[in-house]
């Protein structure tokens, strides 16, 4: 993100928007004051003037981020969005720790777009890559400490004593000498006018004194989420709003030719108007149900994409099939671009005792977040635009809206309600979000428009995790251990897949999980054979690792078998010089009661086996063991043990919840999920044809958090990638069949 692009952005939109419900989500208990109270709320320009420290210290525009209300609740504008991963609570813990305010008194919401919220070291602001806590940690601590400093100053004025005599206790400034205490809420209006202190001067709390960081603090949003009180984007209502539904062209790139029954549809009950959009038609109505029925009734003659359209968008070919594409990936030849080389792989393979070759595959997958995409757009009388939508990166979205509308970015206000799941779904994907359509419809109708995509339209326009065929060649030495490894992945990375043109450098997301492995294999080469995917690509939870660790770790087991090695012992051997990973691997083995591969007969009489998977994604380390059995020819995962080392932990309970969630998604992927295209169309348009993991398929989960003290890593994504290989490796052991692709539902183990 370019710094300064949004310099004049209004900081907080304080006009009393007529939302039908509370404007601020995540009211924690005791904070239901209802009325909007100005605490630290300042226009951005003023805030910026007060905090001109520059990018060296991010997140120092205290008034932009913090507001303390008379009732002592702390309202935090979180730079990171909450989508179930617990970020808001973690932010409250981190800020609260330094501000000296109990996290339970926090009211957290997603900050609007604006440079003052770009707290990441990169200067960007995006929720993704499991970066929120680890990347926001220093800035958010500093923010809390600065806020505390300002409150102390205000307290000094208020009490007429020197600052040096003051301390704080949660929510209060304390003058120990006189026994006087002042609530933060009573000082906020004074603190507001004070200059932000020099960030270099603030003293942070000694970690040994932490009261909330590192503890399983209760999440702030649980009660609201358990009682339906959260307004997701799809739930937001504003006065005068109309609803819209769209029907997309069956293939991306096609355009509206003609509509056979436009007039009839316009006459349908409740229908306000019928619209043509790029690659879609829309119906606007008083109720969404009418809009949806109307748009389904539209009979559109779709025209094939203009020649040349492919330079701007990914035109989906009419004959595209994933089955054919898979064959193509397996056999295509072309330029192999090395991402990692060590030693001399050619020599290594030549000198090897045995050479093992195999091709492994990963499939397209959908995000399948439970909240269908929506966007609500409103043009205001003063020419500004308000838009509500699920997103992971308000500034990027706003810049894109500015580009599309020709408006100045500062005239656009983005509201980012909580996400009903995202898993990478709410990044900026061309044609992957309803907001351009909502904006166009709001413009055309002069009314606020809420557009919801049906689940069917979502499955048609979701961005997919890339497909890959990875050709492995490995050399084993005389003892059966791998000494050389040559890996060529025929694929396109998610990042390079965002547009129509490829960047200069290799896309790291294409090969992460294949590259930079800690295993001591001296001669190796990891290369990409770039193959353009016809489908729109995107980030899926754990990105490249979500597939590549499966591919690598299952091939590693294949090597173990070929070399007559136990897969656990082999990994320990290959990691013998890596203390952190050796500890982790042993931790997960211990957690499972000691490594035992099987097959063995369990107490219930079922035959079972266990498998291992390891992964080093997003700055963290993970190792998993899965135990599987077969039921009517299908795989049942009985137990999963996972050890995760994110360096340091802010909230162990949230980490454990994230491990559970990541395991569920990893299992879903390896057991069930696959996006199939035929004739240029996805076969599944709803969960009916795209089954995802259900409760009765969820195994028992055992989590061990290992705090190595290393640099803080991510948590949301790292537990996932080890799961698919652990399961597949267990299945190979149980059935004696090599698994080289997902999902396992493709295989019938009954025969």
């Amino acid at each position, binding site marked *: 993100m370019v710094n300064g692009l949004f310099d004049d952005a209004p900081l907080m939109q304080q006009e009393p928007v007529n939302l039908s419900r509370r404007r601020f989500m995540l009211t924690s208990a005791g904070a239901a004051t209802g009325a909007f109270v100005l605490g630290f709320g300042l226009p951005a320009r003023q805030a910026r003037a007060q905090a001109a420290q520059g990018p060296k210290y991010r997140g120092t525009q205290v008034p932009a981020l913090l507001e303390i209300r008379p009732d002592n609740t702390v309202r935090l504008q979180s730079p990171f969005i909450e989508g179930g991963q617990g970020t808001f609570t973690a932010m409250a813990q981190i800020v609260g720790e330094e501000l000296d305010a109990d996290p339970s008194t926090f009211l957290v919401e997603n900050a609007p777009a604006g440079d003052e919220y770009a707290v990441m070291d990169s200067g960007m602001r995006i929720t993704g890559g499991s970066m929120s806590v680890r990347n926001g940690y220093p800035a958010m601590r500093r923010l809390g400490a600065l806020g505390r400093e300002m409150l102390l100053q205000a307290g000094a004025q208020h009490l007429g004593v020197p600052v040096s005599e003051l301390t704080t206790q949660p929510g209060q400034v304390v003058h120990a000498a006189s026994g006087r205490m002042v609530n933060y809420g009573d000082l906020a209006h004074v603190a507001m006018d004070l200059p932000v202190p020099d960030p270099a001067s603030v003293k942070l709390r000694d970690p040994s004194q932490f009261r909330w960081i590192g503890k399983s603090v209760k999440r702030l949003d649980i009660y609201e989420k358990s009682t339906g009180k959260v307004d997701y984007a799809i739930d937001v209502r504003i006065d005068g709003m109309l609803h819209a539904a769209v029907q997309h062209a069956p293939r991306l790139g096609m355009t509206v030719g003609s509509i056979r*029954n436009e007039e009839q549809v316009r006459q349908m009950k409740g229908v306000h108007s019928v619209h043509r959009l790029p690659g879609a038609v829309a119906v606007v109505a008083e109720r969404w149900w009418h809009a949806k029925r109307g748009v389904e*009734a539209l009979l559109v003659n779709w025209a094939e994409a203009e020649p040349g359209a492919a330079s701007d968008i990914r035109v989906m070919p009419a004959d595209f099939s994933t089955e054919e594409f898979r064959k193509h990936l397996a056999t295509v030849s072309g330029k192999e671009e090395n991402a990692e080389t060590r030693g001399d792989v050619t020599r290594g393979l030549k000198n090897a005792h045995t050479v093992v070759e195999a091709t492994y595959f990963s499939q397209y997958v959908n995000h399948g977040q439970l909240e269908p995409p929506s966007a609500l757009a409103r043009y205001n009388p003063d020419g500004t635009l308000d838009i509500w939508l699920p997103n992971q990166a308000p500034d990027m979205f706003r810049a894109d809206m500015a580009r599309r509308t020709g408006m100045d970015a500062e005239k656009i206000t983005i509201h980012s309600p909580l996400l009903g799941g995202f898993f990478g779904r709410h990044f900026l994907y061309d044609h992957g979000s309803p907001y351009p359509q909502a904006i166009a419809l709001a413009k055309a109708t002069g009314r606020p428009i809420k557009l919801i995509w049906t689940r069917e339209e979502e499955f048609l326009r979701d961005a997919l995790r890339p497909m890959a065929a990875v050709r492995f060649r490995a050399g084993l030495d005389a003892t059966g251990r791998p000494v050389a490894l040559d890996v060529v992945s025929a694929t396109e990375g998610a990042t390079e897949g965002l547009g129509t043109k490829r960047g200069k450098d290799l896309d790291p997301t294409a090969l992460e999980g294949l590259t930079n492995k800690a295993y001591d294999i001296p001669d190796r080469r990891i290369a990409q054979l770039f193959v353009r995917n016809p489908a729109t690509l995107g980030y899926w939870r754990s990105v490249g690792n979500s597939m590549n660790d499966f591919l690598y770790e299952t091939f590693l087991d294949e090597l173990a078998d070929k070399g007559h090695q136990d897969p656990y012992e082999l990994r320990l051997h290959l990691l013998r010089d890596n203390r952190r990973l050796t500890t982790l691997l042993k931790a997960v083995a211990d957690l499972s009661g000691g490594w035992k591969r099987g097959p063995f007969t369990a107490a219930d009489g079922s035959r079972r086996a266990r498998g291992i998977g390891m992964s080093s994604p997003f700055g963290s380390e993970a190792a998993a063991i899965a135990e599987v059995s077969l039921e009517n*020819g299908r795989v049942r995962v009985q137990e999963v043990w996972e050890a995760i080392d994110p360096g340091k932990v802010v909230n162990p309970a949230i980490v454990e919840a994230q491990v559970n969630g990541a395991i569920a998604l990893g299992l879903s992927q390896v057991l069930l999920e696959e996006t199939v295209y035929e004739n240029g169309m996805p076969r599944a348009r*709803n969960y*009916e*044809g795209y089954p995802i993991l259900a409760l009765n398929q969820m195994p028992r989960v055992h989590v061990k958090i290992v705090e190595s003290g290393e640099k803080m890593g991510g948590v949301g994504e790292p537990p996932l990638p080890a799961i698919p290989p652990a399961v597949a490796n267990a299945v190979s052991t149980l059935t004696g069949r090599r698994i080289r692709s997902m999902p396992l539902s493709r295989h019938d183990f009954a025969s």
Partner: protein
Amino acid sequence: MTNRLKKIFAVVIPASAVLAAGTAWFVTRLPASSFEKTGSQGEPSAQLVARGEYVSRLTDCVACHSVPGGAAYTGGLKMVTPMGAIFATNITPDRETGIGAYTLADFDRALRSGVAKDGHRFYPAMPYPSYAKLSDDDVKALYAYFMKGVPAVHQENRKSAIPWPLNMRWPLAFWNVVFAPSGVYRPDISKDAQWNRGAYLVEGAGHCGACHTPRSLAFHEKGTDSHSAAFVSGALIDGWFAPSLRNDPNTGLGRWSEDDIFRFLKTGRNDHAVVFGSMTEAFNNSTQFFSDDDLRAVAHYLKSLPGNAQRDGTPWQYEPTQAKALQPAGRQGIPGAQTYMAKCSFCHGTDGRGQGQWVPPLAGAASSLVPDSSSSINVTLNGSDRVVAAGVPDSYRMPSYRAQLSDGEIADVLTFVRSSWGNRQLPVTNGDVKKLREQTVPASSSPVILKIH
């Protein structure tokens, strides 16, 4: 695109017919047309063209002669037969690739006798044995419509993929002599006008028998009119079992009133059933466009066809016995009960009664009571195409469960359905499901409406 109905049955040419090949004269002669002497009539009236369009709705030409997304009546629909695929032809008035050069008599011979202008004979995928009953007036109107109401489109026909010698069509002449009834519909003077109109529509224009009448080994319909007990008594076609349209209370229309039938054909639904499978296409493109009088005539006529009590068994009655089996604890021991609760009950109800006209009951449904389980399996595997009534797609559709349920689970849940709520004990086997799984594909979740202009 989908498994839309091919109003086609397996066209197998009986070997005996080939052996009995007669003279070249016989097989190449053109059948007579009542319009032989009729010269050009000049420009047809708009009224006649409009009348022709209506007749085309009755005869549902579009079902086979158009494909989704294609121009109206340009053909192209692939019909898979055991001998190979054949393709419906272009019947727009284009002179080279369509029927623009056809005289009224040529058109008549094609429609009512199954012989093209060049003398080649149609496979009986074309329901000319039924169309033979069309009145001269309707044929004239239809001709006017196809010449003036349908835009000419130049589009070459696709060759059939049936290998020689089975692609020799002249043996069909013998098939026609033996099996195809000839002669326009003749009113039964013992019946009233409404009945006769209904008979004309059901036996003739609507060619209901093409799907609903069982076929012999030689693939002709076993009955072609109300005199035959086999007529529209139910038949398997293209992976669906088209149920009896006779007064069988279990497997036919015995429990339906005339009004029920009327509403079903008009709106696609009533309290007994919602159109699904192949019937969806017949409804979407044809029956809903019948005039109310014509639909009432159809209903009136169908209600006059006696059922077969011996075959149908004792009339079904609802039994509430299954309720207990569906309790969380109870259903774990009963194959299919858990799947029913998790996948079916939210729409069809724990009582199997469905939700009024919007979601059909499974209790007492013909598809649950008929011994052939194809329709039950097919709709579970593949869901159903969207029902589009008066231009508006249905609010509720049947999803496809092929990706979620194994053959065994589908067999179990259907066995459960088919033995609950008073339904007969009619089990479904894994093998039944496996076979249909291989032969069919999921329905589209998007509405498909064929163009007629």
